């Protein structure tokens, strides 16, 4: 099992490297001279060349990439053009906010999706099944930010149960997490249902039935444990989606997180911040997937035996 975990961690390195290549090329793929992103247009040619040399942009691209990676490993993500602070410092401030939102949304989503998905699978083709899958369809079809806005209007403004914006208490967290959690649950419930259905179709379930066990015993003692394994892999899949959703939700609820930082940086052309944010966000998603994979290996006894 340890070997499996180590193997996966090694596989991680090329993926992370590949991601750094992509994020690095972003700056250089942008149309126009990267220098224009750092200085204004009303600058003399000498000053431009100075700045270019200062940022090392006059060296060959490959060497720039290597120094980019070296700086990354040291934790140096550059300097924000607008805020004149190290990008790493800004990100360190905002990361916990986004992490909090992401984890809470994940928990809410699974708390809703797993029971509903299992129930729908067990009671296949009944009213329960059709009703929950219809609800799931509606949930899947809603843009997350729109749902967030509607929640904001109803619960924060009309009913005054929650604050309209900000960060700090659980009340600030609840509505945004609910918005992401419910829309994610809609899709996750479907996936839970289909993996549960696959488990139910297995021969050992038929054996359990023919042994005379009640439906409830069959589900609780046999089906659930085996269905849990693919459900855990779902965790890894949904993390990426949830991080994507939190970007917009942070804007809707004015939470000071990574997502909002990214969008504002893009709109104000603060490229070091955009780059740093992309590296951190994608690294977090990749690590999250790795954790889910390791969790899967822990839970699935078949992998332990390899």
């Amino acid at each position, binding site marked *: 099992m340890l070997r499996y975990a180590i193997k996966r961690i090694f596989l991680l390195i090329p993926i992370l490297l590949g991601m750094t290549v992509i994020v690095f090329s972003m700056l250089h793929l942008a149309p126009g001279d990267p220098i224009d992103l750092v200085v204004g247009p009303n600058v003399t040619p000498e000053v431009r060349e100075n700045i270019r040399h200062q940022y090392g942009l006059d060296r060959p691209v490959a060497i720039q990439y290597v120094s980019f990676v070296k700086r990354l490993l040291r934790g140096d993500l550059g300097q924000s053009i607008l805020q004149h602070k190290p990008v790493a410092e800004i990100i360190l401030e905002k990361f916990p906010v986004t992490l909090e939102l992401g984890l809470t949304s994940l928990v809410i989503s699974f708390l809703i999706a797993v029971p509903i998905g299992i129930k729908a699978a067990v009671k296949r083709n009944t009213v329960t099944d059709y009703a929950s899958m219809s609800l799931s369809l509606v949930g899947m079809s809603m843009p997350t930010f729109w749902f967030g*806005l509607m929640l904001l209007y109803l619960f924060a403004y009309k009913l005054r149960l929650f604050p309209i914006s900000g960060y700090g208490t659980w009340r600030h967290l609840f509505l945004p997490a609910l918005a992401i959690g419910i829309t994610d649950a809609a899709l996750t419930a479907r996936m839970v249902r289909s993996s549960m259905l696959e488990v139910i179709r297995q021969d050992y379930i038929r054996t359990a039935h023919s042994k005379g066990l009640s439906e409830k015993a069959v589900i609780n003692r046999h089906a659930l444990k085996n269905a849990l394994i693919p459900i855990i892999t779902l965790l890894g899949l949904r993390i990426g989606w949830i991080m994507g959703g939190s970007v917009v939700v942070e804007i809707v609820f004015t939470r000071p997180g990574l997502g909002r930082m990214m*969008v504002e940086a893009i709109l104000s052309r603060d490229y070091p911040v955009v780059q740093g944010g992309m590296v951190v966000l994608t690294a977090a998603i990749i690590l999250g997937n790795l954790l889910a994979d390791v969790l899967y290996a822990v839970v699935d006894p078949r992998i332990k035996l390899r």
Partner: protein
Amino acid sequence: MEQVAQAVPDKSDSGFSEFKRRLFRNRAAIFGVIILSLMLLCAVFAPWLALSDYARQDLPSMLQAPSWGHPFGTDEFGRDIFSRIVYGARVSLVVGFLAVGISLAIGLLLGSLAGYFGGFVDHGICALIDIAWAFPMTLLAIAIIAILGPSLFNVCLAIAASSWAAFARIVRGQFLSLKSQEFVEAARILGFSDGRIILRHIFPNAIAPVVVLTTLEVPKAIIVEATLSFLGLGVQPPIPSWGSIMSSGRSFLFEAPWITLFPGLMIVLVVMGFNLFGDALRDSLDPRLRN
């Protein structure tokens, strides 16, 4: 007499009419088709369906609640929301189909190459697919807009950059299973070139799941476009996009919630329509369900 009549193949036994019959038996599918047709009508006939020009400002009537004159209310410039939504259907449709069209082209190309040639080509393309798959669509799209700048076409590119992987994967799977079948071997023995085999022999048999995937990827594209426009990273004003209407409506969320409510409802309806249609399509194309 009857036996003779049945020996002659009837027009209604053809695969396509069987497929149509199964498709329209599904009520959900019909609902989906109705919604999609309405959206198409809105997009094409927008100038006639809309109550007024989408950019026409009428400041004295600003921020009015829905009424007979303005079924969906007005925004902060007095513009009729209903008209803006009708015109917004154009943007959503164009982006949906253009983005998925680009994805389809890339995905079909790379997927068929990977599936047919295998080996090194396959490994390389699979690695590309995994990388594209790993990034959440919204985040990748935002990053690409950061590089290319906001515009309708760039939004399509940004969406396609993520969406192509799903197509490539499906096409590759299809090719992998089809290329070992006898009709392909026969074509090779007959001396047909690889290109011809791919295009005229394997493709037609691989298409069914691709069509289904298209109906499911278009609504995803529509939602991502709305999200991008909401963030200001998509279609720029004064062109109305459902996302940008909601974005400006956000400043008046409490005084005039209808500005944000209705575009979102439209999106929900349209996405549901596509999903229902796609599900029904998938069920009717599934050879296992044939009685």
